[in-house]
């Protein structure tokens, strides 16, 4: 037992003051941790906003805040969670920390650019949060900034939109960095199909970041131009087209959904073989399905607009394309399941979070089919069903994958182990709370309660009440998880270099790894999960 914070390896400040060593670092592991700490802060802010929303909705009528405040709450909850947590999420934190380790490289291809991405992220984040404090009040448009409301409202939309614009650049540069790293920096012997699947997932993700993010950048700038210069792009009163805005917005924001989920799936593909002690089933199928999701994901944005006034044939084409994108996800789930078959399964917290991911992602994915079918989408579009669906995918999927990755690489990063039993209990609290919080949303959405409602009709009361109680259990689970991890960080037992018996290269170096990752660059001869 040691009683100080982790030291050694890349935690060595090399004689510089700690703050200077961290803020000027170009080490991928340190940048990953910078992202991790800042993301955690924003995530917790988002959680508090969400908690306040649920509290307001515990009963019909006013409970806590005024309608205008509530509208600001859900907008900021969405903007913070989507742009500051879920989109950067797994790639910025665990991509940065693990990708070079998995590839047997000393760093990413452009370490300085990597640090710049973090500064852009922080700049965008500060701009987004300052909409709370300055000007005419927080934006009240929802995270989608739909025109023409976003053009007309007097709240701080321009600033929030500019913040999203800057955050977009952070995302593009990270994507570019990872693409180059994967192409150019794999260690000797690591051919494409000997690459760990997390790297494949990041590869597919990076292409989306690089190609889709510029579209939203331009769209958001168009809103600013319309607001400041009065040029009619989206507001029909100025001669614009509001449906055009929705197209442009979703051309980015739907592929962005895969930016959010693909890296999470990559994490699961690392954890399943390690804790089943078995070669992953269908390596190529999983790798190709990541690329397929990234590719088809570009052509399905219209399913956000089935009731928007888009032409009839377009609605039908988007519906069928949407169903096609479900197939590669299904293939992944079946292969994960087959990986467990005949394995030797160790139910440690990372595995538990991974299985939690599969269950919650299944509900999220299957309810997505309801959204993809035209007849059913018309009924549940813009209702709480959609809110429930995307929380199952984004929080149950990406969020749980993030927690899985955190529990998986925690001993590698800090060289210490958390209390495994307590972490298991925290999982069950969180998992229970999650379902109590979000399942009633699916029900109340089917009953016809629209989303973004400050107040609701009496028949929607019970599911809302249950959901609010669920939000308390969820937050209790989150706090419990954080307490366990912080304890592990401060006082945890020293972890060995390879506590989970992993075969990938990240486990073949010290915990915490040295600044250079490896004493000598490794050479690989086999695939990543060849358990014998």
């Amino acid at each position: 037992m040691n009683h100080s914070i982790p030291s050694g390896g890349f935690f060595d400040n090399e004689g510089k003051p700690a703050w200077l060593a961290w803020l000027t670092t170009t080490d991928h592991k340190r940048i990953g941790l910078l992202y991790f700490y800042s993301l955690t802060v924003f995530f917790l802010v988002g959680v508090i906003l969400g908690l306040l929303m649920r509290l307001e909705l515990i009963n019909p009528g006013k409970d806590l805040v005024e309608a205008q405040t509530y509208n600001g709450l859900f907008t900021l909850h969405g903007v913070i969670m989507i742009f500051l947590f879920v989109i950067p999420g797994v790639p910025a934190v665990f991509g940065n920390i693990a990708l070079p380790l998995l590839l047997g490289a000393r760093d990413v291809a452009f370490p300085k650019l990597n640090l710049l991405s973090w500064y852009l992220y922080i700049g965008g984040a500060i701009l987004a949060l300052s909409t709370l404090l300055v000007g005419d009040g927080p934006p009240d448009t929802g995270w989608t900034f739909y025109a023409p409301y976003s053009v007309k409202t007097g709240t701080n939309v321009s600033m929030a939109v500019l913040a999203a614009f800057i955050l977009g650049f952070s995302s593009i540069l990270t994507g570019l960095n990872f693409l180059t790293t994967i192409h150019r920096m794999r260690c000797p012997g690591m051919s494409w199909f000997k690459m760990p699947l997390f790297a494949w997932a990041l590869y597919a993700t990076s292409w989306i970041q690089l190609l889709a993010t510029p579209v939203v950048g331009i769209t958001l700038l168009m809103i600013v131009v319309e607001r400041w210069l009065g040029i009619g792009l989206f507001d029909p009163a100025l001669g614009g087209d509001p449906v055009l805005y929705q197209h442009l917005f979703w051309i980015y924001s739907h592929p962005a959904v895969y930016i959010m989920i693909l890296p999470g799936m990559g994490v699961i593909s690392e954890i399943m073989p390690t804790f089943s002690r078995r070669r992953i089933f269908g390596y190529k199928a999983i790798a190709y399905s990541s690329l397929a999701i990234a590719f088809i994901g570009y052509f399905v944005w219209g399913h956000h607009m089935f009731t928007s006034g888009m032409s009839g044939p377009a609605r039908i084409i988007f519906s069928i394309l949407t169903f096609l994108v479900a197939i590669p996800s299904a293939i992944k789930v079946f292969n994960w399941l087959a990986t467990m078959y005949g394995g030797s399964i160790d139910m440690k917290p990372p595995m538990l979070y991974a299985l939690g991911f599969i269950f919650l992602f299944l509900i999220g994915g299957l309810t997505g089919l309801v959204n993809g079918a035209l007849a059913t989408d018309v009924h549940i579009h813009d209702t709480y069903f959609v809110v429930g669906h995307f929380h199952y995918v984004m929080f149950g999927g990406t969020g749980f994958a993030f927690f899985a990755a955190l529990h998986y690489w925690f001993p590698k990063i800090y060289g210490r182990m958390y209390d495994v039993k307590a972490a298991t209990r925290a999982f069950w609290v969180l998992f229970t709370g999650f379902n109590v919080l979000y399942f009633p949303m699916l029900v109340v959405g089917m009953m016809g309660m629209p989303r973004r409602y400050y107040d609701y009709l009496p028949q929607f009361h019970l599911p809302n009440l249950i959901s609010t109680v669920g939000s308390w259990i969820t937050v209790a689970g989150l706090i419990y998880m954080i307490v366990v991890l912080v304890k592990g960080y401060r006082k945890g037992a020293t972890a060995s270099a390879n506590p989970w018996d992993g075969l990938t290269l990240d486990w073949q170096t010290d915990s915490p790894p040295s600044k250079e990752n490896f004493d000598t660059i490794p050479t690989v001869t086999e695939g990543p999960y060849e358990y014998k």
Partner: protein
Amino acid sequence: MNTGASSFSQGVDTAFIVILSISLFFLVGITVAMIWFVIRYNRKRNPKPRDVKDNTKLEIIWTVIPTILVLVMFYYGWIGYTPMRKVPNGAMEVKATGRMWSWQFDYPNGKQSNVLVVPLGKPVKLDLYSPDVLHSLYIPAFRIKEDVVPGLNNYMWFQADKLGEYDILCAEYCGVQHAYMLSKVKVVPEEEFLVWFNTREPESDTLESVGLQILKKNGCLACHSQDGSKLVGPSFKELAGSQRKVTTSSGEEKTVIADDAYIERSIYDPNAEIVEGFSKNLMVSYKEQITPEEVKEIVQFLKTLNEKK
């Protein structure tokens, strides 16, 4: 989910049942398999993993079967949906206006209503119109929803096949009163509908002043009361000629007299002067919707609210 009450309900509900049953089958199946594997292949019970080779046949099976199933789902979604965009000939056309934050229905004979009254078993087409921002007309019991888009001639139609009153909600976020942009659709027997349709409520034509009609037509009363109660905006009661503490757009606080020019300013440039106790940016300019002549009528009407006291 409540039972459906339109000709679309059956198609939509069938699609729901097909998709949800297939989904439930996979959810339960995969979860049970997962739990079974965790127990059966636990490290304690099964310390040595078996080497299982990749199986192309299996990969093909679990690619092809989901593909077929999702195409089945697509099909049910499609056939349940197609009739929603095909308006039958002879449907009664009603103009449905969604504005911040109320619904209004204009019938072919000029009759206006805030409640959508329709005859049982007859097709009704709604021409959707918005003067301000996006709204979405949603009738859960009919399983229909369509966005009301400013500048676009969007439409929806339905045929109610159960008597009763059903909720109309706005499903596209439209500002502070979004959750209160509610109405009802009242399905009545055709004879009853015709009686209602052909009755001109006397007060709406003869007794009601032109100014009040303009206020109603533009949905002003959703936010401005006539009896002094405080809604989103200041009440109209005893407004004309009163002294009002306002904050200008530059942040300056001053007291002004609510004269004719003030009322016109408040309609055309509502955020220029905000009355104490109210928030700005909740009202948009009505320059496009209300003519200067109509403003004069409104002023006349507001003055009558003072005389009554």
